[in-house]
């Protein structure tokens, strides 16, 4: 009778503790996975914002070239859209004569999106056409 009580009391606590530790571990892992998923979702939203911002800045540089085939901004200029800031660098005659390269880096919080476009310019009539656009 003595032995029975002693053994029962002795085995219950470790069993509960071990089970609890396993459950806790699963819970913590689940929480961590959720945290990571939440961060990824937020990052995805920021990336979408930075993408729209980068496209806006790309369009701005393209419009300026359409209006002035000689437009360049080798040292860059900034465009702000909400909480996003995009830096735009416009290099005339890069990568070749009668072509202009636009490089945009849009930043929202710590997320960045970089786009690069190449515009060809007809030297005679001044019309511009973007023939390449890629994400770097």
């Amino acid at each position, binding site marked *: *009778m*003595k032995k029975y*009580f*002693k053994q*029962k*009391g*002795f085995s*219950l*606590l470790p069993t*509960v*503790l071990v*089970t*609890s530790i396993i*459950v*806790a571990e*699963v*819970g*913590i892992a*689940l*929480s961590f*996975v*959720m945290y990571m*998923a*939440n961060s*990824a*979702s*937020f990052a*995805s*939203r920021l990336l*979408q*914002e930075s993408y*729209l*911002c980068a*496209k*806006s800045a790309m*369009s*701005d540089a*393209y*419009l*300026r070239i*359409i*209006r*002035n*085939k*000689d437009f360049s901004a080798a040292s860059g*200029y900034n*465009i*702000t*859209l*909400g909480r996003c800031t995009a830096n735009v660098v416009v290099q005339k005659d890069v990568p070749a004569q009668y072509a202009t390269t636009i490089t945009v880096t849009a930043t929202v919080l710590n997320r960045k999106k970089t786009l690069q476009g190449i515009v060809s310019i*007809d030297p*005679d*009539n*001044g*019309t*511009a*056409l*973007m023939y390449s656009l890629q994400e770097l």
Partner: protein
Amino acid sequence: MFSQISFFKINDQKGQVLAEILVAVVLAGIIIGGIAISTGTSVTTSSKIRENTIATNIIQSAVEKVKILSEQSWIKIYCPPLGSCPGSKGSSNLYYIDDNFQIQNGQTPQVVDGVTYNYYFYIDNVNRDASGNITTSGGTEDPSTQKVTVVVSWANNSISMSEYIMRLTSQSIVDFNWRPELVSSNVFTNSLGYYAATSGTLLFQNGTITLTPSGSGSLTSVIFDTQQANGVAFNSIRWKGSLPTSSHVRFQFASSNSTSSFSFIGPDGTSATYYEAAGPDQIIPLSVIYHNNQRYFRYKVYLDPTTDNSAAPTINKIIINYSY
């Protein structure tokens, strides 16, 4: 004596077991409670993540629709919802694009995975400063740039994102090779050497225009048709030729949606001012706000000789750039 000791020991042991059970139950309660909360939060978070992702996708899709519509017909974005200017803009004018790619008033629901998302967008004018930079205060309106903000709301949540949409199809008409006998009041879609009128001492020389340097002269172009039913934004004038020191080449520009009504104006929108470049092959920006959403145009070029009347400018090409 022996049995007394044994009895106390048993009592002691019983109490110990009870305490252990209590500790175990409390511990289990705390841990399982925590796990239950954690699991509940995880389930809620997971659902929010899914909803946020869907909302972001709806925004992306809506922005793309607006962009496609702007490429098809800029005036529908510039003067929403019907394309009749001035249209209604700002955050109090909500729109969505229906399945027939028409702008409709209000917002529209979209049900995904049993959740109803309402989306709408609104459009704001955009101003630029004298250097052409987008500015949030001051500056002048740029009719080729609009800010589109898309808002998606569901349950008690909402997300909004914005993009600048611009008129980016570039075109030009080059007028050249004028002949003195080719006078016309017709409408042309490209240059065939015709002009509408001249004045003063203007001269035609092998397809170019110049002056007898004793005085000034001007040439009025024929009516040009950009063939864009909803009009275009006229961006710039450029001319090629030569400009002796102290001589001048100046322009006035007229745009219209009919072929019968033209007013030649300069940068301030009046007939008292002129567009002028320091030399040939230089871009002369037009005041887009006065030449926006118009289909037809004509120009008037004024030539002045040098101050001592010894030489005159010569023009062999005039290039008009526009976008739609």
